[in-house]
């Protein structure tokens, strides 16, 4: 309503004959044009052209593409590597989501106890989040090193055998997951800390008057009050995990024997190493559909839970 009133005032700017630039500014279109330009060129257009590309045999080697109908999609559905790598992505998501909720929650609750050294706790949990992924993987590649790594030195010290963490199919995905939790936990930790401090103090005071002890307050006030943020964290976590690429590419290149290769790395390999852009685009859209379905499902699950 205010904006309607605003429009009526526009002619006042130049006695009814404002220059067209002034009129454009007053209409507000110019405010959104810069954003809409980059939005259209670098988001909307790739979405469209990728969709079209999925129906062609476009190649990185530059030969002209021709239309292949649903060929790429038919091939993708029958391609075991698509399903295998998609499963790796889902597996990675399943392994990381629970620790990415429970550990930051625990760390935030402990930090919130108010012991001295707050600055240090925040620093050690959050600092890894500020590291570029390459630094993270160099750090952990060296921790995991089969011969000279700290982890195997520790295993030997307690009498266990050395483990080739990143070269053994049984441990590679787990190792990648541990690195990821170490790297990104700080973000969820901060969200939990913020949420903890938003819980109104009077709830605790009222509970104390009613004779509730510390544990009772925690189960009946603190944890229920964190329900909404936990739902949000789980959704953010799911979306982030399904896009996993960087740390796996840098730690294992998807190996050993492709046992950690996530679907996004398969897209990359097909498109940029195999030169088959059309097929890579088709796989992307399949994955996109899966992500949308999963996140909508989760959103629904959590919005029902919190009401």
């Amino acid at each position: 309503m205010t904006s309607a009133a605003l429009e009526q005032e526009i002619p006042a700017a130049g006695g009814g004959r404002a220059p067209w630039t002034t009129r454009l500014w007053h209409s507000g279109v110019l405010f959104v044009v810069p954003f809409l330009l980059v939005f259209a060129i670098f988001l909307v257009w790739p979405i469209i052209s990728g969709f079209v590309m999925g129906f062609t045999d476009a190649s990185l080697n530059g030969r002209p593409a021709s239309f292949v109908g649903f060929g790429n999609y038919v091939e993708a559905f029958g391609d075991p590597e698509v399903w295998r790598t998609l499963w790796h992505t889902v597996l990675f998501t399943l392994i990381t989501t629970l620790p990415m909720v429970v550990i930051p929650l625990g760390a935030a609750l402990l930090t919130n106890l108010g012991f001295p050294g707050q600055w240090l706790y925040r620093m050690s949990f959050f600092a890894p989040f500020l590291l570029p992924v390459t630094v993270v993987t160099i750090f952990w590649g060296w921790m995991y090193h089969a011969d000279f790594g700290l982890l195997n030195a520790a295993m030997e010290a307690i009498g266990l055998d050395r483990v080739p963490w990143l070269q053994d199919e049984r441990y590679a995905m787990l190792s990648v997951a541990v690195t990821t939790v170490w790297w990104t936990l700080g973000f969820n930790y901060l969200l939990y800390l913020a949420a903890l401090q938003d819980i109104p103090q009077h709830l605790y005071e009222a509970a104390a008057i009613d004779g509730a002890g510390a544990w009772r307050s925690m189960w009946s006030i603190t944890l229920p009050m964190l329900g909404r943020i936990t739902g949000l964290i789980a959704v953010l976590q799911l979306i982030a995990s399904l896009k996993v690429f960087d740390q796996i590419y840098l730690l294992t290149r998807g190996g050993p024997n492709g046992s950690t290769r996530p679907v996004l790395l398969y897209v990359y390999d097909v498109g940029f190493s195999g030169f088959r852009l059309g097929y890579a685009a088709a796989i992307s859209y399949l994955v996109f559909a899966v992500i949308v379905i999963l996140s909508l499902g989760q959103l629904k699950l959590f919005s029902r839970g919190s009401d």
Partner: protein
Amino acid sequence: MTAETLPQVSSNSRARSSSQTWAGSSPRRLTPWRVLGLISLVLLAAAWLVPFLWNILTSFKSEQDAVRVPVQIMPEGGFTLEAYRRVLGQGNLVVWFTNSVVVAVAVTVLSVLICALAAYGFSRMAFRGRKLLLAITLASIMVPGQLLIVPLFRQMASFDLVDTYWGVILPQLVHPVIVYILKKFFDGIPRELEESARMDGAGPLRIFWSIILPLSRPVLAAVSIFLFIGAWNNFLWPFIVTNNPDLMTLPVGLANVRSGYGLQYAQNSAAAVLAALPLLVVFVFFQRQIVRGVATTGLGGQ
């Protein structure tokens, strides 16, 4: 939403006062449970520092000491700066660092500018198609940008922007979620201020620049920090769009050179430690702002 409702995470006094809450007793009293809590907290925090410490330690060893079996915590040959001297001597690290600064600053400044302009337009203006455009913008938050690398790369190739700064920067400027956060903030600013400025003859751009932006400083800072960290650490897109080592950002260059260092583990660690430093130093000085920026933006401005 106003500045006061931004989550306040980092003040010690608040953390201490809330300790009286679920822990029950006064913060000074040490019950066995509180001692157990303290021990778990310190152990967990210490565990989180181990990968840092192990790599810092390695970076000060000679290459021979780094690969000794059994692993030695303290090197036989003493500590040395050799690895750092070698890494810095190759010069690439400085180039990549500069590139990262250029890219991250450009992405942050340009994104905040265009997103704030758009958010103000969506919040206050009444142009045709506003609702539809806003709905499209918000819906696009769902799109995982990583899945667009293939068409985006082809597009950048056709624009001749592969291996250029603009090729790295431009696709990183699209942040519908930031538009959403800022629009929500602008919606909460009372309109009286703008009305009176308009009476005084100020145009919309002028009102935006000298009334709205100054009022929005806290949320702009929060959003900028979030964008800067994201751009500084972004890997996938810069990795795909740059092949020329002189144009690589720090994360990409470092990934490319790992094979170059070969089995030089001390140098690997030294390079990683150097690359880790800038944001960690920034964090030490701006902890409060960074924590608040990440918490606010991470929650979508709630």
